[in-house]
């Protein structure tokens, strides 16, 4: 503890005055010749047990009063609350939440407008500081483009800022803000986050994420002080008064749609209000044309699903849009749209050498899966062309979007070169295994020399393996396999294999410079699906602009039940679609839809925010004044003269009461 006016503390010595007076009074007394001594002695006997604490307490109070007065005037400061380095000039990085929820309509001003006002107030309050301004939207950006000392410039920038970000990336912005201090000069670093602190975000942050930020804040010789500057209570309205509805499309997979293929849009409407939404109109729009609408009811804090369907005759991109016909607090989440790519039926060239054998072709099931309609070829999802390896010339190779090798023993070098060119230019290649494969050729030539296989083929496993192999059940991460995470779309675990060729990790190095060059075109191998033993079943890799997929088994029914299972059709169709369209089709690009978490306008509770702040070592403030107060406390410590003054008043009052009590006893 220190004192701002320490000289006045000397006044505390006046406590000696009442003490001296008391001692003098004790040593000096008047003498009275008294007659009624027996009354006096009787009273003394009664009073002999009476504690003298009253007089001692009165003396203590009288000594305490000048001490308290002197301490109050000396303005004591509690320095234990002072933070080292907090007394210098500030470097302040403002993090402004510009996510969609900051544009909620709750009163005369939006939360974002209030946030900008707070930022401006803070900047003008600390004119000597240097400032940086970041937005915390999905892609945090440096709004000022650097550091400035000019509050006017900050004001101008703030005036230009608008809510643009569909979502929030506060943690990323915090990291960016901390890194920003590297280009700021003042050692007193303060990171001020101005946000509505939605519960949907702040309730999700894990301890590990917060610990990472906390480490970044405390790193270095001068730690960064983080402040959570909350908006006024009325900014987002009371939690119990939220009136917001949102809509979104459930299928977001980036998957092309073929011409004339039916597109089924599944929309979900969420009611974040505490009141039911009735007669809500949901509009389905394609390429800005209203196609259909539905009237639905959505219960309070509940959801409702709405379905629409359409077909596309034209190749190209189309915009699908759902819109709610009702205005609420947050307008941005009342519309949801994404862009859809419609492609022509992919052309697949199937290379099958079993056609002349008069037996069931190796690719029969594959053909059936890709082109089930023989009469109405236009209705087939794929345009297939089945040729033998000998027929596979340059013209044939170039005429398709993808080539499938089904249990082909080997190819001549010319054909391989054509396939290499084809794939490197964006074509797809699917290689199935089988008993006819010349494994040595595949490993040395196709894999080793031409790099057209991601793995080598290993030994052929067959009947001696008594237990059929299954595929490992693992959640698929690749977009084209997404649908198989839903068992209704197809159960991959139903596939069983009794014959296969192991895909080996080891690659054969040829040592030639030409081969090294070829290897450069092959990208990183990807295990798409694996056996339950862990060995890959389906693997792929990029090659130039194209893509190669290698399968450990054949596509026929020999050695597996795969062609006979329902999942075979969608699996092959998805796989070939991926191979055939991976360069020519842009994935579905979501437009600037609002993050669903933005729609829930419920704010993080005070206790919840305090808990998070505690983990981050942050301070929660609700105004610039409070920020300044905390900052002053960190810099100077806390002035506690008011406490002493209150104690002084209490002591005076007590002295008055006690004095009166004793005086009443004497008069």
């Amino acid at each position, binding site marked *: 503890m220190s004192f701002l006016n320490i000289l006045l503390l000397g006044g505390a010595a006046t406590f000696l005055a009442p003490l001296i007076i008391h001692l003098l009074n004790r040593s000096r*007394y008047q003498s009275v010749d008294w007659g009624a001594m027996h*009354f006096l002695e009787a009273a003394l006997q009664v009073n002999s047990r009476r504690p003298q604490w009253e007089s001692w307490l009165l003396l203590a109070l009288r000594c305490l009063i000048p001490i308290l007065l002197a301490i109050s005037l000396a303005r004591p400061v509690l320095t234990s609350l002072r933070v080292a380095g907090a007394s210098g000039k500030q470097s302040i990085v403002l993090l402004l939440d510009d996510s969609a929820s900051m544009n909620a309509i709750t009163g005369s001003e939006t939360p974002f407008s209030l946030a900008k006002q707070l930022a401006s107030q803070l900047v003008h309050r600390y004119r000597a500081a240097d400032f940086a301004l970041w937005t915390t939207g999905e892609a945090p950006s440096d709004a000022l483009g650097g550091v400035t000392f000019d509050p006017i410039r900050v004001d101008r920038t703030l005036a230009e800022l608008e809510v643009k970000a569909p979502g929030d990336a506060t943690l990323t912005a915090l990291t960016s803000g901390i890194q920003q201090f590297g280009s700021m000069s003042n050692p007193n670093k303060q990171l001020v986050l101005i946000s509505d602190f939605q519960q949907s975000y702040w309730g999700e942050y894990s301890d590990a994420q917060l610990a990472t930020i906390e480490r970044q804040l405390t790193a270095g010789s001068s730690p960064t002080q983080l402040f959570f500057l909350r908006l006024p209570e009325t900014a987002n309205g009371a939690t119990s008064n939220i009136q917001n509805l949102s809509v979104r499309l459930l299928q977001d997979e980036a998957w092309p749609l073929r011409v004339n293929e039916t597109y089924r849009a599944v929309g979900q409407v969420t009611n974040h209000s505490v009141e039911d939404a009735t007669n809500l109109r949901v509009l389905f729009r394609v390429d800005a044309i209203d196609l259909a609408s539905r009237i639905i009811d959505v219960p309070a804090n509940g959801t409702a699903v709405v379905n629409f369907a359409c077909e596309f005759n034209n190749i190209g991109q189309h915009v699908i849009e759902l819109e709610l016909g009702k205005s609420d607090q947050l307008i941005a989440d009342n519309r949801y749209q994404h862009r859809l790519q419609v492609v022509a039926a992919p052309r697949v060239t199937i290379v099958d050498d079993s056609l002349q054998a008069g037996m069931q072709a190796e690719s029969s099931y594959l053909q059936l899966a890709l082109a089930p309609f023989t009469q109405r070829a236009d209705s087939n999802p794929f345009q297939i062309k089945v040729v033998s390896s000998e027929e596979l010339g340059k013209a044939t190779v170039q005429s398709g979007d993808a080539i499938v090798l089904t249990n082909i023993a080997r190819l001549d070098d010319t054909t391989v070169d054509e396939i290499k060119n084809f794939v490197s230019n964006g074509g797809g290649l699917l290689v199935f295994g089988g008993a006819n494969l010349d494994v040595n050729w595949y490993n040395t030539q196709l894999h080793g020399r031409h790099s057209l296989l991601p793995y080598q083929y290993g030994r052929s496993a067959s009947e001696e393996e008594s237990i059929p192999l299954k595929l490992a059940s693992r959640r698929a991460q690749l977009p084209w396999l997404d649908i198989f995470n839903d068992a209704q779309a197809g159960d991959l675990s139903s596939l069983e294999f009794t014959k296969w060729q192991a895909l080996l990790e080891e690659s054969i190095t040829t040592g030639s410079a030409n081969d090294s060059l070829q290897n450069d075109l092959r990208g990183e191998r990807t295990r798409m699906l694996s056996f339950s033993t862990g060995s890959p079943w389906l693997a792929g890799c990029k090659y130039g602009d194209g893509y190669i997929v290698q399968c450990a088994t054949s596509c026929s029914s020999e050695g597996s039940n795969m062609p006979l299972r329902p999942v075979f059709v969608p699996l092959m169709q998805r796989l070939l679609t991926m191979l055939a369209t991976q360069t020519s089709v842009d994935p579905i690009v979501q437009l600037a839809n609002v993050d669903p978490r933005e729609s829930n306008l419920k704010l993080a509770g005070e206790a919840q925010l305090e808990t998070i702040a505690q983990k981050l070592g942050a301070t929660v403030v609700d105004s610039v004044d409070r920020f300044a107060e905390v900052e002053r406390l960190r810099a100077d410590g806390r002035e506690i003269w008011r406490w002493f003054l209150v104690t002084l008043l209490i002591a005076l009052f007590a002295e008055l009461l006690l004095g009166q009590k004793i005086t009443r006893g*004497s008069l």
Partner: protein
Amino acid sequence: MRDDILDGNQAATPSLLTAPDRDALAQLQLLARNVVEGLTAGRHRSPHKGASIEFKEHRQYVRGDEIRSIDWKLFGKTDRLYIRQYEDETNLRSMILLDQSGSMAYRGPNSATLSKHQYARQLAACLATLLISQQDSVGIATFDTELRAIVPPRGRPNHLQAIFELLLRSATGNETQLSQSLKQATTQLTRRGLLFLISDCFDDIDSLLTALRYFRHTGSEVVVFQVWDRDELEFPFRNRTQFRSLENPTNQRVVDPALLRNAYLARVTEFRQKFASGCAKERIDLVECTTEQSYTEVLQAYMAQRGGIRQSFTKSGNKESR
């Protein structure tokens, strides 16, 4: 004639009675509540019919009556012998006991100009003068631990000289043995009479009442003038004070009066209530006074009370004489 008596004693007691005191005393009428026997005719009526100037009634002569008592004029008118009877008057034999113990020497710095002893002497002088002026017998005795000086009751006007001389010689100093002194005083008031006790009564109440009860048993009337100093009643001291006993100088107490006041006042109140209750029970007149009060006013107030009693008693006395 009463004025002559007062004037004749004025020169001898210049410091004890001031002129206003004498004027006030001249108006006082002291009448005893009870009729007492006396040798000297006075204003106190006796139930015994005897020689006096105030005619009471006639009765028929019987053998043995004195011949001189026959009303010859009535005999001339009625031819029958009647005896004239007169109201008989007795004088009052009274004794004043003056406390001169050490505690009576207190004179408060805050309250009065007279000490309790000085006040008591004045009061005794007034009483004696009043009684003598009524041709009653009055004596006086001073005491502390025992009777120190005694002037027996006399009714002569020059008897005041002896009383005043004793009062002037009275000095305080010793401790109080009030009950012991009262027992000694019983030898001085063997006949029915009036006893005035002027004291602060700082003694054991039970012993004191026991001693006074003896006087009541002899038929005497007892009047106690309890003299207080206002300091003793209010204990107004605030600063730290050393209290030295007036009766025993070695007894000293240094106390904080503020802390002691309530307990002290409680003890005084208890003492006063107990003493007043005891006096009422024994039909003893208790007159409390402080040294700030005029002693003549104290006497006037007391005598006014006594006068009321005398009237009622006179009526009952007449009925008895018939």
